[in-house]
């Protein structure tokens, strides 16, 4: 994202806030602005001039106050140097309510410097026109935004990696070709299973693979009877828009209304079951005779206590739909404060169980071993009461009748209680698999690599690529290094060794590098290699290339890996490469560009796509990124961090920040904000005590790992070896944009303030970067 440095007098702060607020929310621009700097006694010139150097645009907010500010002049002088050396673009803004002639008269030599673009953003004339012009001007100098590039990639017919979502596969045959089955222990057995993973982890694909049509297609069979799979999948997506929304007030009256929700959910499950059975009959996957059809109608009618005599399946469908409509109408009238009447069906879990059993017994297409497997997608969209109902179904499932495979985002559970307020337990009542592979665990990392390898193999072979081995197509960074004796960034191996030695010698001054054992030296080199490289690179881009690098950057999320490949391929095609016929491979440069573009895009989407808390989480991630970056550049023994540990995380519940929602202020507890970040895979809860997808489990410390895809944009290392410790109070201050706290945290990671309690040998991270 292009970055803009705003140079202004603090007396004009109100206007600047207004303008930057407008720009920030909509555009992809990074605004560099530091109000603290301009207050007397708090200047940090190094930081300011560093930011000016980093920015592509320098924007002085011209006014009489600006003219009088010596500090503003110093910043502008620095910018002029950058303009000469680096071609930094200067675009002045004239503040509203200023007199243009008066300001120009006072500008003296600056008028000449800014003359070229003085007409662009005249806020003294019309705010909106000025804003429009300003953004247009910035746009002229910018390359395509990451969003534009991503859009091009996704819409390109030639890009094999554009198929990133399960919903894109309309044709089960195509889906079968692309799909790679993960090695999941409990997927096809009769025990209820929770599949937990963030967006892009592949949950929907896995559930869809249990769909009867997929199974039949996979086995090249013609009907259900020909395949040996006992599970008959019933896919049920609890998408937004599926259920009546309910207010807290309505939920508070839950005791008398609870039955409504049970009725609604059981009716919807039944309706979907019926739909799938009848659809399978139409496609000849199963056969339902006329007499069986009649019996099904009778079974459903009696089990669901439907009011009228149902003659046929279409009639039955309408009847169930009608019952569902009565409920939604009742709920909406009740929400309006009216007193509607509704005769509840009073359905019970047991009746539903019996319904399933009778259907299985009745239909000759099902064997004695067959059972229904309800594939519930987007569990996190269900309300607490709906989850209780589902949990009850799970607790009282019977292996020979039905089971559940439930897909949910992390922390997507509102409750693990049943309707009887008993808790369902992992191991006892259900199994759980995390699809967000933990790259810090060797076994999990290996499984992920194998999984992703097979997926890319399927993609490439479906698209008739000459080489279907993704490792052959992606130029590898390590191989480059071995072949050329230097890194793709042009650093020699000797340089890096020297840097490692320097770090070590600074760290332990009384023990020199040459005095330590060879084995220890090699071990140290392994641990410090990336950190040393980043330090030598400074602000230059780190290069990423090869299957292993993409594995790390994807952070254990399948979709991220596919997107990285997609963008890398996109850039290779722009460079007229022929990857498909095997003539070329995707270079490290193209892969690096893909990594940075996807990183910037994913970072920018935090504030736009995360409901309610997006802008706050975005700011927090950037702040943590700055702190970790400082550590990377300066810490003597623990450079590579993208983990942070919170001491006493339960305190987060008692702390909150005020957020504005449509003009209204409300206080949000920090734990909710963190939970949202985990649900959206911005952070991942990492290892440690009490880690669980159940967000209600209390812990003494909680560690989070930042999604590694942000590493390029944040200029930190994606190899998350060490952590930084943060107190809840500091997190609160960061979210409240208290610059002082951020400075303190940055200072803390620098050498002079580090207590160095842990010796180099005793670092706590699993060896992340190596195989």
């Amino acid at each position: 994202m292009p970055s803009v440095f705003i140079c202004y007098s603090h007396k004009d702060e109100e206007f600047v806030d207004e303008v930057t607020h407008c720009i920030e929310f909509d555009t992809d621009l990074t605004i560099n602005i530091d109000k603290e700097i301009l207050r007397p006694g708090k200047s940090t010139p190094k930081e300011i001039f560093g930011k000016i150097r980093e920015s592509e645009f320098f924007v002085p907010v011209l006014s009489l106050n600006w003219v009088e500010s010596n500090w503003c002049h110093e910043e502008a002088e620095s910018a002029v140097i950058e303009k000469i050396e680096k071609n930094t673009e200067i675009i002045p803004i004239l503040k509203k309510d200023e007199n243009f002639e008066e300001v120009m008269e006072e500008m003296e030599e600056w008028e000449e410097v800014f003359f070229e673009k003085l007409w662009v953003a005249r806020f003294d004339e019309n705010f909106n026109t000025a804003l429009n012009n300003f953004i247009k001007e910035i746009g002229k100098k910018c390359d395509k935004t990451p969003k534009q590039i991503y859009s091009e990639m996704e819409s390109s017919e030639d890009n094999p990696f554009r198929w990133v979502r399960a919903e894109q596969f309309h044709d089960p045959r195509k889906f079968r070709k692309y799909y790679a089955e993960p090695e999941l222990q409990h997927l096809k057995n009769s025990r209820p299973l929770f599949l937990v993973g963030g967006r892009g982890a592949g949950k929907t694909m896995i559930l869809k693979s249990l769909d009867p049509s997929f199974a039949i297609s996979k086995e090249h069979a013609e009907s259900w009877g020909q395949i040996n799979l006992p599970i008959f999948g019933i896919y049920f997506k609890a998408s937004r828009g599926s259920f009546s929304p309910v207010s807290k007030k309505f939920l508070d009256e839950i005791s008398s209304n609870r039955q409504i929700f049970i009725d609604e959910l059981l009716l919807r499950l039944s309706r979907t079951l019926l739909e799938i059975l009848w659809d399978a009959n139409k496609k000849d996957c199963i056969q339902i005779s006329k007499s069986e059809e009649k019996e099904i109608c009778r079974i459903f009618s009696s089990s669901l206590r439907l009011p009228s005599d149902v003659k046929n399946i279409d009639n039955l469908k309408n009847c169930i739909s009608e019952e569902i409509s009565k409920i939604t109408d009742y709920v909406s009238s009740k929400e309006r404060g009216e007193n509607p009447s509704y005769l509840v069906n009073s359905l019970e879990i047991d009746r539903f169980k019996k319904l399933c059993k009778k259907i299985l017994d009745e239909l000759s297409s099902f064997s004695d071993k067959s059972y229904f497997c309800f594939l519930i997608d987007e569990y996190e969209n269900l309300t607490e009461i709906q989850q209780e109902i589902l949990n009850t179904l799970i607790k009282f499932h019977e292996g020979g009748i039905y089971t559940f495979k439930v897909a949910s985002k992390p922390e997507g559970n509102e409750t693990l209680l049943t309707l009887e307020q008993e808790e369902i337990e992992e191991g006892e009542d259900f199994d759980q698999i995390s699809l967000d592979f933990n790259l810090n665990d060797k076994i999990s990392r290996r499984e992920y690599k194998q999984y992703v390898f097979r997926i890319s193999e399927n993609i490439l072979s479906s698209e008739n690529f000459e080489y279907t081995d993704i490792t052959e197509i992606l130029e590898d960074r390590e191989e480059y290094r071995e072949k050329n004796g230097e890194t793709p960034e042009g650093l020699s191996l000797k340089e890096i060794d020297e840097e490692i030695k320097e770090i070590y010698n600074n760290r332990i001054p009384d023990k020199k590098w040459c005095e330590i054992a060879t084995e220890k030296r090699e071990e140290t080199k392994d641990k410090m290699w990336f950190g040393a490289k980043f330090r030598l690179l400074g602000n230059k881009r780190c290069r990423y290339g090869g299957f292993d690098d993409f594995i790390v950057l994807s952070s254990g999320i399948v979709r991220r890996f596919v997107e990285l490949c997609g963008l890398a391929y996109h850039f290779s095609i722009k460079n007229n490469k022929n990857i498909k016929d095997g003539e070329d491979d995707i270079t490290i440069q193209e892969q690096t560009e893909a990594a940075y573009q996807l990183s910037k895009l994913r970072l920018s989407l935090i504030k736009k796509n995360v409901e309610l808390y997006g802008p706050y989480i975005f700011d927090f991630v950037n702040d943590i990124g700055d702190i970790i970056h400082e550590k990377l550049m300066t810490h003597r023994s623990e450079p590579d961090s993208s983990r942070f540990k919170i001491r006493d995380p339960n305190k987060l519940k008692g702390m909150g920040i005020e957020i504005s929602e449509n003009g209204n202020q409300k206080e949000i507890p920090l734990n909710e904000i963190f939970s949202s970040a985990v649900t959206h895979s911005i952070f991942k809860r990492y290892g440690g005590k009490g880690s669980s997808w159940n967000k209600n489990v209390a812990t003494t410390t909680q560690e989070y790992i930042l999604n590694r895809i942000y590493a390029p944009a944040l200029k930190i290392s994606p190899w998350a070896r060490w952590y930084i410790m943060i107190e809840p109070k500091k997190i609160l201050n960061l979210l409240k944009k208290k610059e002082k706290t951020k400075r303190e945290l940055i200072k803390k990671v620098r050498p002079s303030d580090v207590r160095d309690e842990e010796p180099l040998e005793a670092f706590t991270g699993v060896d992340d970067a190596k195989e």
Partner: protein
Amino acid sequence: MMQKNENLNIHLINDFNLKKRGNILITSSSFEERCLGSLNKIDGNEFQKAIIFTYEEPSEDRDKNLKKQKQKLNSLTQNGFEEIFTSSKNPLKGLDEFAQYLKNYSPKSTALTIDISTFTKRHMLLLVKTIEEHGFWENTTILYTEPLDYITNLFLPLSMGISSISTIPGFVSNTPSNLPLFLLIFLGYEGDRAYSLHSKMSPNTTKLIIPDPPYREEWRGRTKKMNKHLIKILGENKLDTAHSLDPYQVKKKLYELEKEHNFDKEKWVLSPLGTKPQTFGIYLFWRENKHSFSIVYASPLKHNVRFYSTGIGNTWVLK
């Protein structure tokens, strides 16, 4: 601006005599000037009573307009007006009070006139649904005033961020949950909202509807430009148009789409980010296909008030 001699099923208010049409006048307060649009054009008509919905969210401009509205309502009504407080965040608030008022009147002998110009789309849907459920549909007149212009530009949206995505109460489908999801978005000037909605819903198929013709010819292309990222991802072939002002043509378009995307084969989810008349058109379609689709609403995190409408354009009688 569109003129009356176009092939429309709606009429300019100048052509319409409201004398026999109004017992109760219903309107809403707003920071947008056009909340006064209909009121200024129905002089000479007399209502028994008026109801004004006032949104709770603070706004100086709204308060200024409200003062003028109240003066106008006093002059238009025999028995003055009632003020109902509501919230753009929770439009259900106040609807119970409204429903209670309706119970004081007989649907057969009472005519309602509603100016929907400055209700939020969500609120408008709930309001007309309430009115219909209480039996007042046949004798209801719907008025809508166009803005003269939008103080916006092609780079900045009317709103920012996403606060939540939820179904509008009562507008929930009863179709099976295994059907592939068909997302139909009526596009407006809020590209971020549409983009986020699409991203969150993960539909199997999407259709994007652009209002056409635009209220003013010089606005042509704005909607497309403000939604360029979503259009780019999905492809131009996912674009379609629906009339910006005539809700009956919108209903017709929806029926055409239903032939292609059958309710029995796809789970419809509709999002009204377009014009208010289009949203009313969606309601017309809803009442003939109840519970065949859901209507979802993406609440923005913050409205960019500065970039809303300005001025008072034509006033139309939509029903």
